[in-house]
């Protein structure tokens, strides 16, 4: 009886550790990706909404979020809705733009090239399709999103991204005219 009881206590404790491990596993993976990744700065267009679970955030739109299929190299089979896609972006004229898309990791990227891992959202229509890289939101303290939205017209707003070897990207910070915003 007693050993059965202690086993169930061990199981209950294990369940608590599972919860904490779940949270920490996402945290550690993101942290590792952030620290080991290559940093790039890209131009963005922010919009300000709110989530009841995560708070205010700004939606980040990138030039390479919409792929013009006529202008880039791609394998058509990999561009179905919901499909995983690897997009190669390169710096041309000082801006990062998509140059190729494929359903498999293309291996080594060229100099001044970055490979991003994303998934196709929306229905590929005509000659273009939308891709989501998991870096489309930036969470900010309550009320601060509106301020950034106001700055769009007058200032240059960019995001610093970190992209690891496997193509996972994270947003590090948001910069206005090249300076990091301080939310404090």
């Amino acid at each position, binding site marked *: 009886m007693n050993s059965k009881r202690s086993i*169930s*206590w061990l*199981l*209950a*404790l*294990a*369940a*608590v550790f*599972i*919860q*904490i491990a*779940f*949270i*920490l596993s*996402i*945290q550690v993976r*993101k*942290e590792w990706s*952030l620290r080991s990744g290559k940093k790039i700065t890209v131009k963005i267009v922010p919009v300000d909404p*709110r*989530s*009841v*679970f*995560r*708070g*205010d*955030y700004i939606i980040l739109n990138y030039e390479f979020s919409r792929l013009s299929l006529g202008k880039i190299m791609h394998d058509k089979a990999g561009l179905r809705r*919901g499909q995983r896609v690897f997009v190669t972006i390169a710096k041309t004229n000082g801006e990062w733009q998509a140059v190729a898309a494929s359903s498999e990791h293309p291996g080594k990227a060229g100099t001044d090239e970055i490979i991003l891992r994303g998934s196709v959202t929306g229905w590929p229509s005509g000659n273009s399709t939308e891709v*989501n890289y*998991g*870096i*489309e*939101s*930036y*969470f*900010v*303290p*309550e009320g*601060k999103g509106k301020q950034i939205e106001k700055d769009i017209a007058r200032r240059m707003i960019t995001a610093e991204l970190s992209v690891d070897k496997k193509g996972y990207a*994270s*947003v590090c910070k948001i910069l206005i005219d090249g300076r990091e915003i301080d*939310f*404090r």
Partner: protein
Amino acid sequence: MENGKVEAKEKLGQIMAQWLKRHLELWVDAGILSRGQQEAITNLYAWPEQDAARPAGDRPALKLVVILEAIGAFLIGIGVISLVAFNWPGLPNFFKLAIIIASIASAHLAGFLFLARRPKFEKAGLSLVFLGNLFYGAGIWLVAQMYHVNYGFTAAFFLWAIGIVPFAWLLKSELNFFLALALFIGWTFGEAFGDMEPHLPFLIILLGLLGPLSYYLKSKVGLAVCLATGGAWLLVNNILWFGENISIHLVAPLALYGIALLAISNLHAGGRLAAYRQVYLVIGLVAAGIAIGVIPLCGPIKFDPRAMTLATLPASFWTCSGLLLAGVLAAWALARTTDLDQTGIEINKMLPFLLAAALFVFLMPFFKGYMTLSLLPVILIAIAHRHFSKSTALLNILLVYLFFWLPFCLIRWEQPLMLFLLYPAYGAACYLLGWNYVSKLHNAGLGNAFKFFGLFAVFAALYTFSSSEISRSFVKDYSFPSSFDFWLLMAVFYAGAIFAYVRLAGFAYPAHKNGLLPEERFMVPVLLVIPAALIAVYSCNLAGTRQVFAANFCAICMLMAFLVAGYRRREAYLKALALVFLVLLVGSRFLEIEWSLLYKAVLFILTGVIVLVGGIIFEKYKDKVAIIEQ
């Protein structure tokens, strides 16, 4: 003949039993009956169970403790989630993460300690584990916020739910099971509506995890939610399979699902499973009733030429319908061998008629233009039911159904502000009138109906005024009520309420078993102040954030008071009504985008702590709480 009657004792309901018991005493006192005759009449019927026979977990005081502690923990949990969402500037992320992880661990460990060391506080222990599970969700959202992960609701909901399952299983905790269940439901419908594509993995979770778990936890409510979700899932996924060309055939899988549940209820006729039979019966009747009831409503509607026809229906539709039909037939064939009671036999005989009514949907497109012919399936069921059970209940329902059927599509809603000013006064008058029926006129049936409608009106009005958006639209359109009718009605309701309240003066608990409880005596005058206060606030141009805040506070107090009264007097309708509105109110405030997240967090956490501590104190003294015996 006398003996035969005694053997097949008729079961009395609570209300009837109460009435008969009281009147038997009156008749004996008046000399109409002797004590012997009174006893003979008493022995003629099967009386409802007395409290002594109830299992320990079914005691109303304990249930009240559970609900108070669960509400408290839930409020604290969503308060902390709001606090995380507030995204406190200047606080390092790792510090926030450390606090959340410490909160998860300490809530769980405190819960375990209560469970292990203080058996008297078992429910408090389970509530603390529940709180830990809410903190766990806050942790997931915090990490998502820290790293700007934009996974939507769905993936996070799944991770949240799956982390709770071990606790529901290990601690045999229904409360934690319900949380996981709600999150899994959010997950599947989020996925389906997010991608606008059918979401099949939920079927595995439902059949492989949630269903078995509700049997393991002996949770009838859990099973009911699983079965209802199954029906909703079937309907939503079929809508998505149909795409843009939705047709009336859509209701066929839902009807077959309901009939399958009815057939399965007969497989639960005896043994240990008998307790779950009612759940299958009720959910099956509701699903089949809704689906078959919708078929005739489509009679007066023109069919869209682009809608699916028999030839173009998707393969998934035929698979669903075929599997469910096979399920109905299999359960029907198997149930024949077991012993069935009267209801079981009736269901068994009704199954072919229900199937015919459900499959009538395939004939509907051929009946376009013949509105009355579309009523055939419901008429068929009502007549068959009359034939097999000798009861006219379904025929009566058919008449009520016709009432809604005829003006279908003609209903037009108008929503004037004045209606919601009248509602609290109307509700108070109705509620007190109901009490007069119960206390003075001994007509509990009519009295309870009045009480229910009265409270419904009150809660609906308070809920409406607690929304800042609706309140703002009221302010915009407001002008001092000048209509004679409005003031006349207001006067009548006030007069009625005050008259009924005064008449009830001598009917206060504890002197009278059927009297008003102190919490109700306090709430009724508050209720009457509300319309006057609102008119004053609107007329003096004071309506704004503070008024909405006061309305929320008032609504919470009112709902809690009636919830406590419902548990103390063991009135199921009162408990259900107060709980539904409480969930609605808290849910709406949580989702309200306009409120500052910090204020929301503080409000939820403070209220939650008060309710949880109140619940724990209550648990200590639960044996001393006055529960009104009927």
